[in-house]
């Protein structure tokens, strides 16, 4: 018998085991990389826009919701406040209630009407759950005893958030 034939077959050799072990480790590292890459690619888009559909929806919603939130009339104050609160998140609703509390009596006494018109709406950033918009708002104020209207040309950053339901205003900053 020659020495070669006395060795165990290739499938049983320890050398193959070592080679296979190295390959398994390499493949494991490869899988780890693929998993990390997969997760990163599908859930994380860097930059301001991670959802183009949210951008489109948020831009349209910003116009409507901003006008609702910033308009009210003494003649339909309760109804207007209710409609405005309906488009706000609970957190922002508190701020709104405080602000309206300060002007409530005066609004009724002086027959004040505020009419807000969004003359332009644009998007700063958008993800599936949050859209930050820049809205140019003209707010026309009329009051009893004055013929003249006051027009304020505002710039408002309106942040909209969406949970399970529709977009709601979660933050408003005029400057």
């Amino acid at each position, binding site marked *: 018998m020659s020495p070669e034939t006395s*060795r*165990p077959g290739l*499938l*049983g*050799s*320890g050398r*193959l*085991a070592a080679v*296979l*072990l190295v*390959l*398994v480790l390499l*493949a*494991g590292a*490869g*899988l780890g*990389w*693929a*998993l990390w*890459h*997969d997760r990163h*690619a*599908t859930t994380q*888009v*860097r*930059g*301001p*826009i*991670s*959802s*183009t*559909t949210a*951008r489109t929806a948020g*831009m349209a919603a910003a116009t409507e919701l901003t006008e609702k939130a910033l308009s009210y009339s003494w003649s339909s104050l309760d109804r207007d406040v209710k409609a405005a609160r309906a488009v706000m998140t609970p957190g922002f609703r508190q701020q709104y209630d405080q602000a309206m509390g300060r002007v409530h009596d005066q609004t009724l006494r002086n027959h004040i009407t505020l009419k807000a018109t969004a*003359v*332009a*709406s*644009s*998007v*700063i950033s958008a993800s599936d759950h949050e859209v930050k*918009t*820049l809205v*140019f708002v003209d707010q026309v104020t009329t009051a009893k005893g004055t013929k003249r209207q006051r027009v304020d*040309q505002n*710039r408002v*950053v309106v942040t909209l958030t969406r949970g399970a339901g529709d977009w709601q205003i979660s933050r408003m900053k005029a*400057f």
Partner: protein
Amino acid sequence: MAEPRSWGPVNGVLGVLLVVLVLATVFFAVRGTSEEPGTVAAAAMSRQYGAVTAAARQETEAFLTVDYRHLAPSANRVLAGATGQFKREYQEAEVHLRSAARQSKATSKGTVRAVGIGDLDGDSAIVYVAADSTVSNTSTGHKAEPRYYRLQLQMTKVGGTWLTANLQFVS
């Protein structure tokens, strides 16, 4: 010294494990490249957003910045970021703007507060800019006064660069 006979089963297990790992790697690698189509569009739009926003910011600040002692630098910056109708109009008005600025000893420092994008496609964008400036001239008694602006810029991509083709105040 004979090799232990027990390497056979070990090699079998390692072989199976290797095949499983390779298949799993291929599966996730392939899936990673064919991810949800929205993600690719969003990444492309994010890159556009960055370029458009930076260009609009730069152009607006140049447009709102005036120093009657050094009028050329800011005017040149405006023209460098301008194209089409806006560029022509600015060039035509420049002589008048210069003499008016010198006469009133005007200075103005523009600051962009917020930039939003309305309509956007591959090579054109409607951009809205909220900007402030601090203005001083003979009619303010040379005191610095704040000004607030709402601007609409129509931008187009020319040879890889976003330029302003139209600029107007939103009133």
